[in-house]
């Protein structure tokens, strides 16, 4: 099971970084010569919401593809906790199944709370 968790982590990083690199190439190709400015916070972009990202990918927008890669990357360790829970379940270690689920709950609380406030 440790091997499975190792693979989840490795595969998650490889896939998500590949997506980020691909999106980066598309973005540079389309916007490479525009002026870059990040000195001030520019507000919440469309690519935060799932609809915005899917729409962006369909219209082949580099930034939306990068953002999809970043979300996959953030999901990788969360997925790892999920697989750990399954692994503890197989070992019949129910205390650690609960601990894993508690960690997942905290992350989901963070996910929901960040949304409401934004």
């Amino acid at each position, binding site marked *: 099971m*440790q*091997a499975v*968790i*190792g693979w989840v*982590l*490795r595969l*998650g*990083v490889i896939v*998500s*970084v590949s997506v*980020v*690199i691909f*999106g*980066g190439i598309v*973005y*540079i190709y389309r916007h*490479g*010569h*525009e*002026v*870059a400015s*990040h*000195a*001030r*916070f*520019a*507000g*919440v*972009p469309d*690519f*935060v919401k799932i609809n915005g990202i899917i729409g962006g990918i369909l219209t082949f927008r*580099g930034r939306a593809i*990068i*953002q999809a890669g*970043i*979300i996959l*990357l*953030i*999901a*990788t*360790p*969360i997925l*790892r*906790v999920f697989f750990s829970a399954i692994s503890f379940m197989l070992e019949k*270690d129910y*205390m*650690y199944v609960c*601990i*894993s689920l*508690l*960690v997942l709950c*905290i*992350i989901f*609380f*963070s*996910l929901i*709370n*960040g949304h409401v*406030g*934004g």
Partner: protein
Amino acid sequence: MSVIEFTLIVLIGSCFAGLVGSLTGLGGGFIIIPLLTIFLHVDIKYAIGASLVSIIATSSGSAAAYVKEGITNMRLGMFLEIATTLGAVCGAMLAMYIPTHYLAIILGVILILSALLSLRKKAQQIVTHKNDLAAKLKLNGSYPTADGVVNYHVSKVGGGFVVMLFAGLLSGLLGIGSGALKVLAMDSIMRIPFKVSTTTSNFMIGVTGAASAVVYLQRGYIDPEIAMPVVIGVLIGALVGSKILVNSTSSGWLRWTFVVVVIFLASQLIYNGIMGKI
């Protein structure tokens, strides 16, 4: 500055940050945030968001290798992740309300402290006396060495847990892995062998980062244009760094050089923060 120039500069800077981060064990975020804010005048919250994403990448990438070797104590990691994720969520929420120049000052101070901590001598210790809570939580473990399997016990579970809350808080607030503090807590409070504490700390950083990254993401502080070159660069730097680490064991002077660089960057952060330029 055009987008293509900005991307290339950030990419090269991030490679450097990833390299230094992996050689010193401080993590890439430590260098990349001051580089972005001081030299490229990027809003510090964008820099923190990009750094968070990069530490998730490097931590997950290297954790994959350690988990396979069986050094990481997965139960200990999972148990302490309750503390680090709780802290990270609070830290991320707090970061949304703290003015940017305060964040710069706090980051500068923490940077200097962590750099000094990284110079600390690491004594390998094996504790074998019993701790009830550790036994109940099945935290005691073993790890493979060249001379066979070593068994160890874990001390002061509660104390370690509290320090992990604080480490998580800093991670969410400043976008750093706070690996130095995590290792310190496991080494000197919980009395865990150094090899186990570093790999287990690394294992926890990804989840801790993810817990606060979801907040930054939804508030729009993870900007794809900045995060893209940072993630790619830091990952490349960290990969190169890990190859160098395997090939050379004596990096004493290297460590010192980097500590000086880090302290220089940190003092810039503090100065700019106090002057209200960040």
